[in-house]
């Protein structure tokens, strides 16, 4: 972890319009929760539907994409990353720092609003709020690492990330059960399922015994790989 790298990365992420993108989805989530509460729909069933379909299935991967690729891909695109990389700091440390920034963003913009929205609807009943917040946090960490790696590997990180989240996790996952084993979203759902005792959560396709190791392996693997790729970062001339 390098504090100067982290400081510059935070400023790059929050200073531009990207912060509006980061704020939009959590505000929508809380807005929906408020709406449900006002219209008298604040029960466990609707809370869990909102958490599963919006907080985990929609907001988390999108924020993961914005934060995960946002901490590094724009800098690689415009060449500013050279400022960090032409210094005597090991490249894996740069990758780890960028990952920590992205993960912290997801904690603030995904996990905390998830907890708050669920709390608005059902307070702390049956561990729903805590379960989904923890699922969001751990899933967010895995997304941050995966999308950071994508941002290092390819200039089409956002496109590939969207395809992964929408096509693989969203569509293939709902038809092919096996595909859910390789879905960060499902891992996050499994954690929520494990913690919450609510009867309204359907049994998830993925067990907690799979989800936790999978999150650890993907996170560590992606951050290590990103560091190795940065070590061999090449500037290709325009000529």
């Amino acid at each position, binding site marked *: 972890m390098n504090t100067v790298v982290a400081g510059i990365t935070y400023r790059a992420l929050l200073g531009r319009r990207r912060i509006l993108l980061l704020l939009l989805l959590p505000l929508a989530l809380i807005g929906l929760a408020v709406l449900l509460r006002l219209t008298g729909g604040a029960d466990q069933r609707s809370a869990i539907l909102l958490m599963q379909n919006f907080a985990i299935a929609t907001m988390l991967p999108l924020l993961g994409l914005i934060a995960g690729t946002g901490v590094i891909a724009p800098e690689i695109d415009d*060449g500013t990353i*050279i*400022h960090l990389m*032409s210094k005597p*700091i090991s490249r894996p440390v740069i990758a780890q720092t960028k990952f920590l920034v992205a993960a912290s963003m997801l904690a603030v913009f995904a996990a905390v609003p998830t907890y708050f929205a669920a709390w608005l609807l059902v307070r702390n009943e049956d561990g729903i709020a805590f379960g989904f917040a923890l699922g969001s946090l751990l899933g967010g960490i895995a997304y941050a690492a995966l999308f950071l790696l994508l941002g290092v590997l390819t200039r089409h990180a956002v496109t590939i990330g969207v395809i992964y989240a929408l096509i693989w996790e969203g569509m293939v996952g709902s038809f092919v059960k096996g595909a859910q084993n390789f879905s960060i979203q499902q891992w996050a759902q499994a954690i929520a399922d494990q913690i919450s005792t609510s009867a309204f959560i359907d049994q998830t396709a993925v067990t907690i015994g799979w989800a936790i190791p999978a999150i650890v392996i993907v996170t560590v693997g992606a951050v290590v790989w990103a560091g190795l790729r940065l070590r061999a970062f090449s500037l290709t001339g325009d*000529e």
Partner: protein
Amino acid sequence: MKLELSQVSRWYGNVVAVNDVTMTIGPGVTGLLGPNGAGKSTLLHMMAGFLGPSGGSVTLDGTKVWKNHRIYRNIGLVPEREGVYGFLTGWQFVLSAAKLHGLSDPISAAQKALATVEMEGPKDRRVETYSKGMRQRVKVAAALVHDPEVLLLDEPFNGMDPRQRMHLMDLIRAMGTAGKTILFSSHILEEVERVAQHIEVLVAGRHAASGDFRQIRRLMTDRPHLFRIKSSDDRKLAAALIVDASSGGVTLGPDGLEVQAVEFRRFAWLLPRVARAEGINLHQVSPVDEDLESVFSYLINRST
């Protein structure tokens, strides 16, 4: 410190960008000269550890440069692309460089570097409000902040106005005199001539020539040279010179003769003898193309 390139090549697929280049960059100012597309940036990126050679090796005082972040303790890099965070002020940018280097007193190092490039005035403005020349100067300040032994600059004078250019040239010369190892790339001959003591010429990915300007020139005495000659009897001298194979063509004009010497050594040997034998006084013998431009275009033509 010495940067050593040994049989360095770099190719992209089937395209060879740099082809078997061996050179040593020592203390003083070295100009890396070549037309656009010659592979200067590719070579410079390899020297700066931002590109792995496909073949050969690049070392800094014997230490491999590629995949070695420790070299940046000794190297300062001024890349050609912008590479400056627009949302930081000039001061924040240079200070961040000082901190990233882990300097013991980053504030005074940053102040000194900004003073060196005369950017103390606008230092509290955001970089995105700077002109191209100002951005270039904060980049130089950031590269100098840890007082590196080696400074690599990719096309540093691009986009600078004449005054800024002069200032940077003075700065580079002063650092070279102080014993730093400095290499800058340029496709503009006049820049290289004015700043560099030593020139490396890269043409079409190949190391076409090396040395100071005169040495390069001497290396290529075979090339056709154009001389302007004034004498007591131009017509008679023209007739006497064209007889010999060392002259490729002679033009007689109102200002004297223009002789295309195809064999430089023989021509230089012949001219005074012919003049004496014919009883002609030579008033003036001057090379017309004794500038880098003509050396350069000759090199390009030779290697293509």
